[in-house]
């Protein structure tokens, strides 16, 4: 047990932090948000650094890192508030590596090094993580509608959960082809998400098995929990800096006990979450059973973050509410991440089901 970052993780963190510090100003983030699509030049630079294939094994042209290593990168992407398809691509690519056949893996995964982006597509009308999947895969084509597909308007490949008769699985679908129509669905996080309809869209491959869908679901939820924590941590860091500097009644407001208690309570739940989201990625890397753990960690982050984010606004007062100040990037993105891949209500119900099942066993 050693909770300090490995040497590789330290190098990654430093180089990623330097990169975003150098390349990504908040002005640029505002431009990217206005365009509502990821910045291609930045994505290409990140690809050249090997980040787009970080967690994929060297057998398929990847960097041979772990999902936890990729978490180090995701931390820096979130702290820069950069709308980047790197995290959703990670979820899709790792799912394909774990469940795809050799032919698919050797043809598709090396393309990550050329910047290939992947969008997992799971949710349908119920908006529910474990809701019914009605999209159909038949005769090599997919028909159905998916909602909240991250970067769905721009990504190269969609990984679409569908039914092949009675068998669930994942269809690998190129976005840029007839039968795929993506339309923007603006959400609170101001990150590109799309509603996508597939009308007999040709699939490049079919990965059959409920376990493949479940892997994608768990990776998606784990990464969303990780991002939720990261946005809350960043908002808290900004707030702790701010209350040390902001003077009212002749002293920094951070000297007031109400402010200190609120800060301490935020720091406590954020610190607990920090441990849990990192441990969860490690558990996924180790191949441990994670159904219950994904749900409980997602529930914890989804429940704590909204309160922390709103309290960060409270402590900032008027300035934190201004668009020209940067806090809103993190609070809006954090609220969004808390909803993605399972809200608190939905994941708490899974936690309860797991607890009842364990007690009956």
């Amino acid at each position, binding site marked *: *047990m*050693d*909770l*300090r*970052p*490995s040497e590789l*993780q330290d190098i990654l963190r430093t180089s990623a932090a330097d990169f975003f510090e150098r390349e990504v100003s908040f002005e640029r983030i505002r431009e990217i948000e206005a365009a509502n699509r990821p910045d291609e030049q930045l994505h290409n630079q990140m690809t050249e650094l090997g980040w787009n294939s970080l967690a994929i094994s060297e057998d398929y042209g990847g960097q041979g890192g772990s999902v*936890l290593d990729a978490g180090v990168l995701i931390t820096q992407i979130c702290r820069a508030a950069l709308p980047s398809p790197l995290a959703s691509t990670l979820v899709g690519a790792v799912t394909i590596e774990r469940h795809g056949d050799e032919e698919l893996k050797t043809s598709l995964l090396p393309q990550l090094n050329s910047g290939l982006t992947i969008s997992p597509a799971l949710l349908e009308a119920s908006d529910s993580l474990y809701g019914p999947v009605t999209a159909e895969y038949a005769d090599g084509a997919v028909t159905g509608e998916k909602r909240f597909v991250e970067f769905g308007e721009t990504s190269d490949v969609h990984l679409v959960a569908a039914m092949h008769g009675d068998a669930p699985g994942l269809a690998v679908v190129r976005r840029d082809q007839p039968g795929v129509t993506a339309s923007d669905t603006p959400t609170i996080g101001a990150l590109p998400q799309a509603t996508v309809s597939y009308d007999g869209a040709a699939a490049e491959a079919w990965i059959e098995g409920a376990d493949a869908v479940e892997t994608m679901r768990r990776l998606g939820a784990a990464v969303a929990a990780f991002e939720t924590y990261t946005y809350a941590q960043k908002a808290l860091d900004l707030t*702790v800096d701010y*209350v*040390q500097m902001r003077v009212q009644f002749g*002293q*920094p407001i*951070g*000297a007031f*006990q109400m*402010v*200190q*208690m609120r*800060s*301490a*309570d935020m*720091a*406590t*739940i954020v*610190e*607990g*979450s920090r*441990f*849990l989201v*990192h*441990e969860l990625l*490690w*558990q996924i890397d*180790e191949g441990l059973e994670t159904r219950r753990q994904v749900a*409980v*960690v997602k*529930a*914890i982050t989804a*429940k704590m973050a909204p309160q922390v984010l709103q309290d960060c606004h409270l402590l900032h007062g008027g300035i934190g509410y201004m668009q020209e100040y940067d806090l809103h990037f993190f609070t809006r993105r954090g609220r969004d991440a808390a909803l993605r891949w399972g809200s608190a209500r939905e994941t*708490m*119900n899974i*936690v*309860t089901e797991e*607890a*009842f099942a*364990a*007690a*009956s066993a």
Partner: protein
Amino acid sequence: MDFQMPDVVVEFREQIHDFIRRNRTPELEEEIAGHHLHGYGPAAETFLQALADEGLPSVAWPEEYGGRGKGALYLWILSEELAREGMPWDTLTYNSVSPTIMRHGSEEQRRDILPKVLSGEIRFALGYTEPNAGTDLASLQTRAVRDGDEWVINGQKIYTSSAHLATHVWLAARTDPDAPKHRGISTFVVPLSTPGITVRPLWVMGEGRTNETFYENVRIPADALVGEENRGWYIVTGALDLERVAIGTYRPLERRVHDIISYLVAERGDLLDDPATRMAVAEASMRVEVGRALATNNAAMVHNDLVPTMEAAMSKIWKGDSSERIHDSFMDILGRSGGLHESNEHAPLGGMLEAGWRSDPPGRFAGGTNDIQRRVIATRGLQLPR
């Protein structure tokens, strides 16, 4: 980052559970059921002595003081496993005072005191709090005056829990009344058998007792002073940090939540689809999970010879607040019967919720109140202005 508990730790856990299986007598069970907080009886004393004889607490300590040198993580594991099973354990002696003596005591003191702790000959009570020095501990007034080769102690301490069971008191006393209040305190090891000490019971709202202790011209040898004279405040705060790590253990709560959910599933099928109950079950599970995270983070720090300060305060706050929230919410969910005393045959969970709720207050105020802990997090952890 590696979250894997080493294999040897897993083996040590097994060893602990094996010990518990062999030493969990009906007398002990009965004693534990009636004493949720302080005040172990004879069966618990027997258990603790057997634990010492078996050499389990010694695993963590350096070899030169009678230990097996495996590191502080092992001590944490031992206290966690015993706590989960509801077994007796002397947190103050093993987790707080002894490691503090190891850090600040002279070589002679370490060689004298520590092996006796391991053999069960020495057990500590804490002499910190006074009637007028609670949260503002540094204003304590009990005096220690040097007189030749001796110190002479006069004053009064309160909430000296387990003073009626311990052999020694770990005492903080004022040695320089003219210095600023944080700079005139020293720490002593005082045998409770010394003439001039009176122990008087105080009965608590939970189960069992704590004590007032009175010191009247109590004479102890000069070498009873631990650490540098007048530097005691810093020694005490370090010891309190260690104490909080142990208080912050989440394992008893984990066990309770498990028992509560098992009870609901077995006996209260009518509640399993109730939305409020379902959310309470999830909330309790999530609280245990965050508690595990904060506690394990502490353990990893202790393992690397760091003293968690902010981190210890976090796990202590979380544990105390969560215990109260969980007992309270399930007491409400069960309605009137949630408040039944264990003596009533219909009391759900053997009266655990009623007794638990009554015993919750110290979890939030002992070892430094939770609100002061929030100040510790804010000022020492987040570096907000004092």
